[in-house]
């Protein structure tokens, strides 16, 4: 069975691919003077624009209304009091719902609340202090549990 080999990849007489025997590759290193002139002509408008531009005049046109001068107090009000007011407003919007719900715990703040025992004995924490340490120690193997820290 013959396998078709395309002309491109057929090997030459010396075992080389046809790509290895590429002929002269032209490289337009030396362009003609006419070409150079056309290129310079095309660049002229850009160069003219860059060099001929004059700096813009800073004065406002006379037809514009004269703006009243701003006092230092007014300036401070806009630059400092307004952002500060927004800061307070946003903080309130964030904290008020949780305060209303009665969230008393904020992670990172010290805990200063009374201990609370749900489903504990009626004597409370005092009952725990009356426990015999030896008896607790004895049951250590039978007890299980886990611990996590946050």
């Amino acid at each position: 069975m013959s396998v078709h080999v395309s002309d491109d990849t057929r090997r030459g007489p010396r075992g080389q691919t046809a790509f290895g025997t590429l002929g002269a590759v032209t490289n337009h290193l030396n362009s003609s003077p006419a070409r150079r002139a056309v290129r310079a002509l095309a660049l002229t408008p850009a160069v003219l624009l860059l060099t001929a531009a004059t700096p813009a005049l800073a004065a406002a046109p006379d037809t514009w209304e004269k703006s009243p001068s701003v006092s230092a107090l007014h300036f401070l009000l806009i630059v400092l009091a307004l952002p500060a007011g927004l800061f307070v407003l946003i903080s309130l919007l964030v904290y008020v719902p949780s305060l209303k719900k009665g969230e008393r715990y904020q992670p990172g703040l010290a805990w200063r609340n009374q201990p609370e025992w749900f489903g504990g004995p009626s004597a409370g924490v005092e009952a725990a202090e009356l426990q015999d340490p030896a008896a607790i120690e004895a049951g250590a193997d039978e007890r299980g549990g886990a611990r996590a820290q946050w």
Partner: protein
Amino acid sequence: MPSGDAFTAAQRRDIDKAIRDAETLCRFEFSVFVGASEGETRPFAERLHAALVAPARSVLVLVDPAARVVEIVTGAQTRRTLDDAEVRLAALTMQTAFAAGDLVGGIKTGVMQLAEHARRPRLLHTEG
């Protein structure tokens, strides 16, 4: 120095309800202590656990927001159904909620998770 109450009345009701639900789900008793522990957390949690009515059949959850520690103690009988790996999972759930500042939510989900694991009957026929 301890000053105010940690929970509002509604939150207290929520936690009580979670404990009651957990106790009806499995046959064990649940108890949650929220507050600063006296001394080391683990020995303190074990003392609290020993002070319960039926320690062997009880699960104690100690939440110490001051030390940022949650300790869970299971009794001898409880441990047979609720092994330490399952308790660790519940502790992890609570840890995540507490770190986000949700004390009540963490207690509720943690207790329910413990109860769900404790409810699962042990498959006796798989043991030799």
